[in-house]
């Protein structure tokens, strides 16, 4: 699988920012609230207008339709959006999500009503529906923010599995310990910039 490369990426509010994520690497992104972490992830998947280059291996973001790019580079925001009544409506019909959902400890939830899901269940199912579409890189914004320890472990295991399969992964987290568990490299953001070159996580 290809590497994710971000070169001089800037929007009105953040940047310019440059960094690389190797295939199979999990890069942790930390920083105070309002530092621009979520804006950076939005800019990478082209949800906000930006300048600079973003590439995934030989694919350049600006040379392909945004909808195709987002199938390669998946972004799971901290707050998930739902449009249908049932969980099933949010999964493509050609994808069997049973195993994926089971790994998150939510077996059988595909038939549930979205309005009855807890915040933590929504968060995990949002990750599942993104992974179901087989992206090559994954950007996750605080995927375990409202999860208990047990569910957090399940999600972390799943993220590790994605890395083992070769996905380039960016993990935004407020939890230093989680960064240490998951990532070998850590970027810190403040006021829309990367503070200094990436540090190695012990």
């Amino acid at each position: 699988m290809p590497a994710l490369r971000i070169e001089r990426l800037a929007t009105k509010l953040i940047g310019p920012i440059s960094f690389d994520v190797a295939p199979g690497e999990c890069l942790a992104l930390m920083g105070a609230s309002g530092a621009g972490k979520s804006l950076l992830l939005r800019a990478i998947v082209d949800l906000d207008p930006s300048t600079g280059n973003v590439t995934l291996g030989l694919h350049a973001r600006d040379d392909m339709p945004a909808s195709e790019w987002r199938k390669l580079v998946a972004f799971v925001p901290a707050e998930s959006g739902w449009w249908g009544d049932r969980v099933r409506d949010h999964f493509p019909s050609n994808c069997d999500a049973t195993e994926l959902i089971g790994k998150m400890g939510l077996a059988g939830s595909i038939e549930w009503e979205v309005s009855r899901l807890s915040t933590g269940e929504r968060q995990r199912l949002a990750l599942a529906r993104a992974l179901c579409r087989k992206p090559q890189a994954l950007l996750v914004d605080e995927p375990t923010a409202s999860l208990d320890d047990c569910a957090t472990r399940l999600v972390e295991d799943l993220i590790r599995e994605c890395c083992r399969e070769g996905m380039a992964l960016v993990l935004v987290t407020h939890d230093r310990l989680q960064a240490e568990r998951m990532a070998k490299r850590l970027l810190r953001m403040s006021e829309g910039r990367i503070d200094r070159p990436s540090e190695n996580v012990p």
Partner: protein
Amino acid sequence: MNSYIPLTHRDLLLASIFLAMNAGFSILLSLRLERQLIVSALRMITQLFVVGFVLKTIFTLSSPWLTLLVAAIMVTFAGREIWARQDRRLRGIWGIGLGGTSMLLAGTIVTVFALTTQIQPTPWWSPQFALPLFGMILGNTMTGVSLGLDTLHTALYRERAAIEAKLLLGSTRWEAVSAAHQRALRSGFTPIINSMAATGVVSLPGMMTGQILSGVDPQEAVKYQILITLLIGGATGLGVLAATFASAWRLTDNRERLRLDRLAAPRK
């Protein structure tokens, strides 16, 4: 059948007796409605007398430029009304321009079509036919367009998380906004659909009633009413379609993004 009965000023005075009685009751029962009642009645009377005078002058002069000028004034007021009836509007010139242009296009196409191929007065732009027809079509299109845009903008704003979730999973902008767009279209079409369904059973249209009162054969008046209602329905539909498609296009972009930064904050 041709039994038009002209009214005198004395008739109007007599007709106001019951309204004056209401004002009296309001004072007796201290409802404090008398002031509003009288002021709005006087406003109505003055406005209508002025309109009657203006229309008579325009009809007598029968100038194409004057007719066009009056039509332009009507469009300006209706365009402002569309703008005012939206809670969240497009920023900048788009706010008044998009709704106004959609209404103007739909209203003009349908009015000119009706004048030149169905009603066919001489000359075709004769103000006596063009202005009332344009006014009725414009008024209904205005209601449809403002409802459609208001629904669309509110839905896109409230459902941005769901819309962006669709975009993130690889939908195009049209796929992502289609649910909100459908709701906007439905709300823009609802008034005209409801009024067509109720016409003649629940309500007698004002224009038809007026024609009957002025001595026109009811069967002829009905034909006029059907013509007008069909035109109004057509123009409203075209206006709502044009406005909501244009606005959904404006509020997304060709990189499949939702551009709520192009929407202004609601009024306080």
